[in-house]
């Protein structure tokens, strides 16, 4: 889910961009001149020109305010350049934006990334929180398997003892417990996968209704094959690890007397 939001944010943020709005009275020559200068600027990677007519057209299309805009006597929008700086360092392109502001015929320079950065920071925070939660849950899984295997070992104490007496190696005794832990982890992982998939599908259903009303399309990604296999492998491994720890802890205590 976080991944979905993150990819949405990446679409929005992508690389940092700066919008430069020219003053309304700038002539075509002046606009072209600024464009040329921007292209030559050392710290700018890419320059995109958005003419005022096109901007109006876009506004009409995306917001559904056709009537309102149609009622306007003239285009209220200025020509604009969207530039993509070469550097990702926030401080550097902030300085760059400040310089641009001083250029003639430039009305306003907007760092588009300010809100995106906030979102990004929040997402990072969310990701970290989720990671911490995942680590905690992993420990929980290990602890649960540890305990389950412990009980299993205690109930099969007699069998273990007899097996040791008639020549079972530790590996032989350990094996079924490790398999059990592995299977337990795998089942846990599979259950988690089903819950995630089903809830994402449910969310997507109601989300598509919602986004339809807002005339956009946004869906939560279902876990990919790669993600799913990582989930299953990791949970199986954690189950195995819990079992291994438990067996290592308890098996030596059971020595035949």
């Amino acid at each position, binding site marked *: 889910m976080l991944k979905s939001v993150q990819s949405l944010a990446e679409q929005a943020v992508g690389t940092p961009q700066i919008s430069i709005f020219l003053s309304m009275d700038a002539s075509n020559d002046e606009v072209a001149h600024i464009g040329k200068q921007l292209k030559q600027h050392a710290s700018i990677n890419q320059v995109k020109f958005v003419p005022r007519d096109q901007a109006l057209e876009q506004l009409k299309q995306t917001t559904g305010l056709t009537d309102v805009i149609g009622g306007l006597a003239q285009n209220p929008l200025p020509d604009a350049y969207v530039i993509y700086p070469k550097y990702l360092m926030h401080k550097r392109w902030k300085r760059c934006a400040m310089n641009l502001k001083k250029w003639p015929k430039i009305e306003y320079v907007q760092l588009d990334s300010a809100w995106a950065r906030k979102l990004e920071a929040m997402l990072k925070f969310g990701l970290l929180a989720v990671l911490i939660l995942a680590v905690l849950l992993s420990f929980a899984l290990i602890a649960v398997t540890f305990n389950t295997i412990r009980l299993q070992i205690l109930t099969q104490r007699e069998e273990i003892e007899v097996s040791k007496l008639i020549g079972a*190696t530790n590996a032989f005794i350990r094996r079924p417990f490790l398999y059990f832990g592995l299977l337990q982890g795998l089942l846990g992982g599979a259950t988690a996968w089903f819950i995630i998939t089903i809830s994402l599908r449910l969310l997507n259903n109601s989300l598509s209704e919602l986004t339809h009303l807002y005339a956009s399309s946004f869906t939560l990604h279902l876990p990919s094959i790669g993600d799913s296999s990582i989930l299953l492998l990791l949970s199986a491994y954690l189950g195995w690890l819990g079992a291994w720890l438990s067996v290592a802890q308890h098996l030596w205590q059971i020595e035949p007397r």
Partner: protein
Amino acid sequence: MIQFSQICKRYPGGYEALKNVSFEIAEGEMIFLTGHSGAGKSTLLKLIAAIERPNSGSIVVKGQNVSSIKGGALPYLRRNLGLIFQDHKILFDRSVFDNVMLPLQICGFDHRESAKRVRAALDKVGLLKREKNNPIGLSGGEQQRLCIARAIVNRPSILLADEPTGNLDKDYASDIMGIFKSFHQVGVTLLISSHDESILRQFKGRVLALKMGSYAHEKLADITYPRVVVYPAPFSHHTAIQPAKHSGDRHCTQLAGRHVFNA
């Protein structure tokens, strides 16, 4: 086959179960281990199977020094031994057949081959008809025989039995002794602990007597075993278990002293 030299075993808490015990058992011998409860019979058997470790001295079983055996080699030592326990140690969560199957599973035998062996072992102890039963329904004697079947299914060269006739009536006991004798005939080395005089009386072989763990002596019960091994006896006032008086060719050797060997 089995060689004890100057074995001492002290349990935590200071109880001395065995003190300076030395003896040797040849391949194919059938030997009785006798002595009162607490004389150290069980301890001696446990030492051979490395269930307990001696505090000093060395035990050599089939050329392998058991007293210093590493954990990893232990299972392979035990696969050469058939252990018969006083308390049977039968698993009640599986059938008679599966109980006997366990040692073969542990050794990783092929299933069909091991099923054959299990049936052969069960037939030997007369439990073939009960193979599908749960051992909980078996009588004490039958459980003991099941334990024997489990011990022999692996065809070990040494069989150790701890009070195999412990809580059994005479008929069952002589049944089981008959089974042991048949193993002896096919060359298995047997060490049987018992305090049952009536069984000892029927037996013609070496008898190893332990008294209070602190000394051991040996009755030479059969002329075919001329070797006499005498164990250091710290007490001079010991009383030995007398050999059965009616068997004329038996005599008892007891000596208080150190390392006296006759041949």
